[in-house]
């Protein structure tokens, strides 16, 4: 990527705009669905940012990050239940308890996992994650068994400002405040000696040793700090749903946060937030439309890994570099034309997934193997819809490649010329 030499647009203005939207949106549209989506997004954004401290900044691929998230959630809900109304700390500070619980666990687990980097690290985190998950079955008193642990956030005394966090909108702003605080500190860490050395260890841990640093310690501190912020998001999730089940710390949750960070873009600090927004929206909207939404998520992830390793943030970055040289208005036709092959291929993908789902789900009774989609009835036992949809994918991909090659590549070439 030669384009990295050129500075992209400063992220300050977009962040400010996003913040204003995040504040205004729930005030204008008083919808419960919107509020719960926004809460979920805010919580997952903290979680994904903390994950990227490891993956993007230190180069550590963790398969067990949900352990810290989950333990933070359990720590918070237990504290809530123990303290109840005679509490000396207010509910708005409870996520901090989650963070500290996770920090303690991260000190123990990090000591083991950060002995090695690379594949070994990933394997250890996978093992630790499974270990904690199996503990959730073995120790039902703490992890609540199948029913989970529930609590009531209303039970505590109102805050200093008289906020009870009963209404969801009050809680949403608590999430937002925690997101801003956490994001600020995580961003701050990237600018400190530890943050810089995390990048150095990611790039070349051997060289880091020969400039006086113990790479193991750098990995350890980053794991502990990352665990702390994951715990904060876990604490918020406990207060949000007022119930914590063992699902919060299983491999599935670890997988989702990896997906969020990667789809959003691990190369950029704010990328994981974009990933949290996209995947949470997908979960709710695609999940509402199709039972096969996890398949869509999988395909999105594979597409990103194969073709767009920089994630959505990577696309935005390269486009914003372009905008500094070419007027964005002039690019609108290009964007629209680019959308055609993408829509074509996406339709093909949707059809293949839905047809597969119907076909496999009903394969004992072929006569019922009909897919009802957008007012159409498609017979999935017929070969032609399959050919058509696979054809749409292939043609869409080919067209996009051609358009990219003849229309976008020359534009980027202009940028590389001084």
């Amino acid at each position: 990527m030669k384009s990295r030499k050129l500075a992209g647009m400063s992220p300050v203005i977009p962040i400010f705009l996003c913040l204003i939207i995040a504040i205004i949106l729930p005030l204008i549209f008083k919808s419960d669905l919107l509020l719960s989506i926004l809460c979920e997004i805010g919580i997952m954004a903290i979680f994904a940012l903390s994950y990227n401290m490891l993956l993007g900044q230190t180069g550590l691929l963790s398969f067990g990050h949900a352990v810290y998230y989950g333990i933070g959630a359990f720590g918070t809900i237990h504290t809530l239940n123990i303290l109840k109304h005679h509490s000396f700390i207010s509910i708005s500070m409870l996520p901090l308890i989650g963070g500290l619980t996770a920090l303690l666990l991260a000190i123990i687990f990090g000591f083991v996992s950060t002995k090695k980097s690379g594949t070994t690290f990933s394997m250890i985190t996978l093992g630790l994650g499974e270990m904690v998950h199996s503990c959730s079955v073995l120790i039902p008193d703490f992890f609540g068994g199948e029913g989970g642990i529930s609590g009531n956030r209303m039970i505590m005394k109102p805050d200093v400002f008289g906020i009870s966090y009963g209404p969801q909108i009050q809680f949403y702003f608590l999430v937002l405040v925690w997101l801003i605080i956490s994001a600020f500190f995580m961003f701050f860490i990237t600018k400190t000696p530890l943050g810089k050395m995390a990048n150095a260890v990611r790039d070349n841990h051997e060289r880091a040793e020969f400039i006086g640093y113990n790479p193991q310690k750098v990995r350890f501190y980053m794991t502990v700090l990352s665990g702390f912020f994951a715990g904060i998001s876990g604490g918020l999730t406990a207060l949000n749903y007022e119930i914590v089940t063992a699902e919060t710390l299983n491999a599935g949750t670890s997988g989702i946060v990896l997906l969020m960070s990667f789809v959003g873009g691990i190369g950029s600090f704010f990328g994981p937030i974009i990933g949290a927004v996209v995947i949470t929206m997908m979960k709710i909207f695609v999940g509402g439309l199709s039972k096969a939404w996890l398949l869509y998520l999988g395909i999105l992830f594979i597409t990103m890994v194969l073709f767009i390793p920089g994630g959505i943030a990577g696309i935005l970055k390269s486009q914003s570099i372009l905008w500094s040289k070419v007027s964005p208005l002039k690019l609108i036709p290009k964007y629209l034309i680019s959308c055609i092959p993408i829509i074509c291929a996406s339709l093909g993908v949707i059809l293949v997934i839905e047809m597969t789902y119907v076909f496999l789900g009903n394969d004992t009774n072929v006569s019922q193997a009909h897919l009802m989609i957008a007012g159409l009835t498609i017979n999935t036992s017929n070969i032609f819809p399959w050919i058509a949809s696979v054809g749409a994918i292939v043609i869409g991909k080919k067209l996009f490649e051609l358009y990219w090659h003849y229309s976008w590549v020359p534009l980027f070439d202009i940028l590389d010329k001084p």
Partner: protein
Amino acid sequence: MIDKDPYTGKHILEIRDLKKNFGNTEIIRGVNLSLNTGERHAIIGPNGAGKSTFFHLISARIQPSSGDVIFKDQSVSHLKSFEINRMGLSRSFQVTNIFHRMSVAENIRCSLLWSYGYKYSFFKFVDHLKEVNLKCEEILELIGLTARKETIASELSYAEQRSLEIGITVCGGADLILLDEPTAGMSNIETEFAIDLIKKVTKNKTLLMVEHDMSVVFKLADRISVLVYGQIIATGTPDEIHHNPLVREAYLGTHADAIA
């Protein structure tokens, strides 16, 4: 910069009967070497003589089978690489070893952090560390990469990457600098620049270098040791080495045996 007293002893580095074998294969077969403080010492030898292994042993990248490395009157053969580095021994690598996804300036700044005592701090802005940033500018000027400081290290040309590597190696303020083939693969002009650079950065320091290019060795080194088949067969001034019959034999006569 934390002012470390410069080492004043006679021999900054002493290697005593150092041996290394991988399985049954002996690579280093008992090396003895004393490095005078402040000298520029070159190690030459045919391919496969064990020069790089020798470097790895001194810098504790690999552990010796037996023998001792004494740095500043202290045995360091049981220490980790980063501990030896903190004592004031810094090295470069034969294969360019830089932080390739970070900018040139970041590369240098990171290499300065430990020597300024910032360790694993996560509550100080690196941008606000004045003395680090000043020193960084100074080093960039020295290695001739000021104009390229915002460039991602992997996008530098090969010779620029080698300069950066030298910058990373010396900027921590080490007293003993180990350079592993600093001019390998360079054009004549680039080599000239590299020689000047090495002369500049190793002023008042001790240099131990492995080098293939004899003209570089003769321009730079005060003393030369010849490593053949895991043993040092001669040590002396460039002139002495040039006229040493053993060395001539090793390079011309029994060259093939030395590789085997």
